[in-house]
């Protein structure tokens, strides 16, 4: 198992290297001289020279990439241009918001989507099924930021029970933090809960028509066992697949959700960095996110092998 993880990490490395290259190349791909773009055309020659020195722009591209990559392995992503601190520090600070946001939303997607999809599959063709599937259709058509605005209007503006935005860390007490996180979790998780429900229902229906399920029922196994053990186990792999790519979608969605709820997370950091052209920050956030996605895919594959003994580690 450990050697499998190691081999997978090794196989991932070339892709990661290309991705890191793309992330780094962003600054050089922007048309025009970055110094002029950042300082404006009226900047004095000395200011310009200082800036070139600071960004290391006087060195050739591949030297700079090598330096940056070397830093990455030491956990150093360089200095942010406008934040007055290092990029890794800024990202770590912001990840404290984005990571709980993403995990909570994934839980909403899974805990809402899987049971509802199962329920719809079991009562296929009933009013309940139609209702769940229609809700799922609407959920899939609602962008997370729109649902966020609707929730803010309902719970913050009209009912006044939850704060409209902002953030409190979990260290201030779970209850306080939850008040800030509950709406973003639902706004971000609901669309994907809809996707999970649709996929769960589809794969459940496929399994429920299998012969061995009919046998299980025929031999008098309680329905709870048929569903909980026989069906769910057979669909678990597909559900994990869906949750895996839903997790990637949630990472992306989190960036927008943060803006709606004014959460100081990585999305806000990235968007403001793009607008200010703070390239080291843009490179850093992209690299960290992409690395996260690659690791996530690895975890999904490991869960696969755990759930389905036919998949071997070698």
């Amino acid at each position, binding site marked *: 198992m450990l050697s499998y993880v190691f081999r997978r990490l090794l196989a991932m490395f070339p892709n990661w290297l290309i991705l890191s290259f793309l992330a780094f190349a962003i600054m050089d791909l922007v048309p025009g001289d970055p110094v002029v773009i950042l300082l404006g055309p009226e900047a004095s020659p000395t200011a310009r020279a200082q800036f070139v020195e600071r960004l290391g722009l006087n060195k050739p591209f591949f030297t700079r990439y090598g330096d940056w990559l070397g830093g990455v392995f030491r956990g150093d992503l360089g200095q942010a241009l406008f934040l007055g601190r290092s990029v890794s520090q800024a990202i770590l600070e912001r990840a404290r918001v984005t990571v709980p946001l993403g995990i909570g939303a994934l839980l909403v997607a899974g805990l809402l989507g899987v049971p509802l999809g199962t329920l719809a599959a079991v009562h296929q063709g009933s009013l309940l099924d139609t209702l769940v599937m229609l809700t799922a*259709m609407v959920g899939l*058509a609602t962008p997370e930021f*729109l649902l966020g605005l609707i929730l803010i209007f309902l719970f913050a503006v009209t009912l006044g029970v939850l704060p409209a935005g902002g953030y409190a860390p979990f260290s201030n007490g779970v209850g306080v933090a939850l008040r800030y996180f509950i709406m973003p979790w639902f706004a971000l998780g609901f669309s994907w809960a809809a996707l999970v429900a649709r996929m769960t229902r589809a794969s459940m229906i496929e399994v429920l028509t299998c012969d061995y399920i009919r046998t299980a029922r025929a031999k008098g196994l309680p329905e709870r066992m048929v569903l909980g053990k026989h069906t769910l186990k057979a669909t678990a792999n597909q559900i994990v697949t869906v949750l895996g790519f839903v997790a*990637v979608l949630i990472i*992306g969605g989190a*960036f927008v959700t943060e*803006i709606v709820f004014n959460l100081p997370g990585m*999305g806000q950091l*990235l968007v403001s960095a793009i607008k200010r052209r703070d390239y080291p920050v843009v490179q850093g956030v992209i690299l960290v996110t992409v690395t996260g996605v690659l690791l996530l*895919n690895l975890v999904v594959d490991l869960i696969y092998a755990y759930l389905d003994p036919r998949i071997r580690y070698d």
Partner: protein
Amino acid sequence: MTDTTIDKRADKKRVPRVPFKRTLLGRLLRCRTFQVGMTILGPILLFILIAPYFLGYSALEMTSNFMQAPSSHHLFGTDSFGRDLAIRVCRGGRNSLLLGLAVMGTSTAAGVILGLSSAISTRMDLLMVRIVDIFMAFPEILLALGIMAILGQRVVNILIALTIVYAAKTARVARSSVLSISRQTYVEGARALGVPTWRILLFHILPNAMSPVLVQGTFVFGWAIILESGLSFIGVGVQPPTPSLGNILSDARIVLRIAPWITFFPGALIMLMVLGINFLGDGLREITDPKFRESQGKRR
């Protein structure tokens, strides 16, 4: 020479014309799910096409009637610059729809080319899979943001960014469809007859591999609308004052407390547009993919 012409003519006579009911379009029009989609999209299209003629306002004209509630003068009310919201939502909806349609076209074309290339040789296939894998490691919006950061915030660049985002996804679908078709015996037969590769790709494989790609294209249409509105919402997409549903909602967020209708109308339009498009996609999938039909629990 003459023999073959006679044969062709005889063949034409023998093949009965497919009745309209059984063509793709005929089957689509009778599909319930597709009909639901059309019912939702029809009025929206009508609104987008006709509204500019009877609303009598321009999308950029500012007045001193800030944030007025919907009335007979301003059907959807006005926004925080005193602009008529109905015409802005209408124009924004049109922009989103056109952009989504364009992204669907360009990403499908790019995806199909990439997908076909994997049928040329194993080496091409490996290269293709590698490229697609790399792009799939980016969450959609992050890739789009990165590309926008490079290209700058112009409408054409949104089209380019979204095309790159969805071409990779479509390429995956196209590849699996193309590879399964290219293993069919009739393709092998054509190869054995010495038909050139490009001919096999274009005339033997492509037409038969298209239906999953078309279904994917329909969903890309909907996703592109959502992603574009998201980009515009966070201020990296369509730039104001040019209206887009996303940037109207971004302005609306600030005044949500006092003028909720500015959120309601563009929000409802995005939802209904994407809902309608997704129904069209599901309908298309139902009639082209028997397995999906079964999984939806529908009988033939």
